[in-house]
């Protein structure tokens, strides 16, 4: 599904990603943890195509294609979905309008007919139930005035509607109350499928209690310094990131929160 090889990226002159290697197979869920500022969001953004970080070297293969050569919207239509750490508010653009335009752009790309208004609404309302979201949210502007937790739920709603092949969830759990976390986790789990892969960026074991990852990676200072199974997350929860610093691979890792 996704093969990242020796990926380097900088913001301005500042190198942020310093040689990421990661392979994700279809159906797998990978968790990425790591201290603040280590580059997790930068990696997520680079995969989605944001241009504020520049890829300086390395490659990313997505379903056998050179992902980095695709435009942002092409990646999305090919099934890459990023749930943002900080979803932006877009006053004046209706939530439901965006959902429909996004879904139809993707369907068109795949050679499917556009959904008519009725079928589309039925689909969205169905997914909203899953996310336990109030239908009035559909008719508001994208994220405008949404609470932190509502924004995160809205991201997962979009994901549920778009049914991506590669979902990258950047700290979707932060800012959620316990009930909301369960709902979101539930929504995510319902999307787990043999042909769908996920990257979960998180700081907390809690999310991983609900969404069991196949692998856990620690990203520090722009490199993956440790990879393991779900047990790695438990270890991190107990001991923080300092102990990784004892290992050669993670030299110079800062304390995280």
């Amino acid at each position: 599904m996704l093969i990242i090889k020796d990926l380097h990226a900088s913001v301005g002159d500042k190198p942020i990603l310093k040689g990421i290697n990661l392979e994700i197979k279809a159906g797998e869920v990978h968790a990425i943890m790591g201290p603040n500022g280590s580059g997790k969001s930068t990696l997520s953004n680079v995969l989605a195509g944001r241009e504020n970080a520049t890829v300086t070297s390395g490659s990313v293969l997505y379903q056998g294609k050179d992902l980095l050569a695709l435009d942002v919207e092409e990646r999305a239509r090919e099934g890459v979905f990023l749930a943002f750490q900080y979803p932006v508010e877009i006053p004046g653009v209706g939530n439901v309008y965006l959902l429909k335009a996004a879904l139809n752009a993707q369907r068109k790309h795949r050679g499917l007919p556009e959904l008519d208004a009725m079928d589309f609404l039925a689909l969205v309302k169905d997914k909203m139930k899953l996310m336990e979201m109030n239908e009035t949210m559909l008719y508001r502007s994208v994220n405008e005035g949404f609470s932190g937790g509502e924004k995160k739920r809205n991201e997962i709603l979009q994901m549920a509607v778009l049914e991506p092949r590669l979902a990258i969830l950047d700290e979707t759990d932060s800012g959620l109350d316990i009930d909301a976390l369960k709902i979101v986790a539930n929504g995510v789990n319902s999307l787990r499928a043999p042909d769908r892969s996920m990257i979960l960026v998180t700081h907390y074991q809690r999310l991983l209690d609900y969404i069991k990852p196949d692998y856990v990676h620690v990203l520090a200072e722009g490199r993956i310094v440790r990879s393991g199974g779900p047990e790695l997350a438990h270890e991190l929860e107990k001991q923080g990131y300092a102990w990784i610093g004892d290992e050669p691979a993670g030299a110079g890792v800062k304390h995280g929160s």
Partner: protein
Amino acid sequence: MSAVIQHYQSEFERAAPLLPWRDATGWQAWRQSAWSRFAEQGFPSTRHEEWKYTSVAALEKLSLSCAPATPVSLEWASLKDRVVLPEACGRLVFVDGVFQPTLSRVDGLPAGLRMGALSGRSTQDSLKLQGLLEQGQARTPFTALNAAFVAEGAWVAAEAGVRMEEPLLILYVVTEGQRAMHLANAYEAAEGSAFSVVEQYLGMTDEPYLVNGVTSATLGEGAKISHVKIQQEGARAYHIAALQAVQKRSSQFNSHSFALSGALGRNDIEAVLAEPEAAVSMKGLYRVSGRELQDFHTTIRHDSPDCTSDECFKGVLNESGRAVFNGKIRVAPDAQHTLSQQSNHNLLLSDQAEVDTKPQLEIFADDVKCSHGATVGQLDEEQWFYLRSRGLAADHARALLIEAFALDILTGIERPVLRDALESLLRRTAHV
């Protein structure tokens, strides 16, 4: 005498026998004095503070004809699709400045609400008009020129307590260039009355022409006028207009201006909050591209205590388009408890576009709440990325964001049919 003044002098002489109410000495004297005022000043130059960024030098060079045109015939069917409210129950249509009774309809109006063409008024009634038009008159050379030549326009009058929700339409179509049309509109809402009027200017020629308008609105105690003005002038057209609203106690004036096309547009809009508890909402959207220029000079005069003003203008600037926003708020010494808000937001979509924005606050009272703010920015990169990351094409995402920025100006338009009509007009005419 300069060649420019000479041209207009001879036009003045040529037009005189063709103008309405020409036999009334009250009009002759009035026009003559207006003409003298114009002849003294000539067209404003950019040395004039109020015209610093807006040069009318190219307009001056055009030898425009100022006499009323001979009527042309136009079919309603050929206009209908471009009209913002084709179903309006009251409408007045003017083609090349000439009233078109057959395209107009005024039969569906409630008792106590009347509208019509200025030229149809009796001499006696027309003299009362002078008083209204004079309000805004001595201010610019263009208003003086207007007074000298004014030949046609629309009037709407509501008697005390008469309230009409359905918006009325006043349509000015221009089919032929090389002319100057001097128009006047007079809106009068007596005590406790209310109406809503939409002025649409539709240029259907690419030849240069000038629309020079003066509009007066008078609002009695507790009255309400909602005024929407839409400029869709021709590519080489000049549109210059002055609007003044004078408001009595507890009246409400809502003004929405949409300057969507034309080579050069200049609007001077003034609201005078003459008595306590009057409120004005002044909104506007200007869109420029190519080498277009739109200039809004607004003035809100808080002359009385406890009045409210809410002003917001937005601009979308493409290519080498330019815009000017100058927003003056004057709070008189005894206008305590004034509440005033002003904002001007501009979206620059090209490196060549330019906007000059200036708030001008003159506050002489101490117990007031006045805020103002202006922004000039580009499209928000983060929002753009977000939309694209959901699969929307780059252009589509861009158009959506521009639209969202612009359509925001429609808030405050109460009638859904009007809001929807304006929304679809704005979408249809967006050049992205």
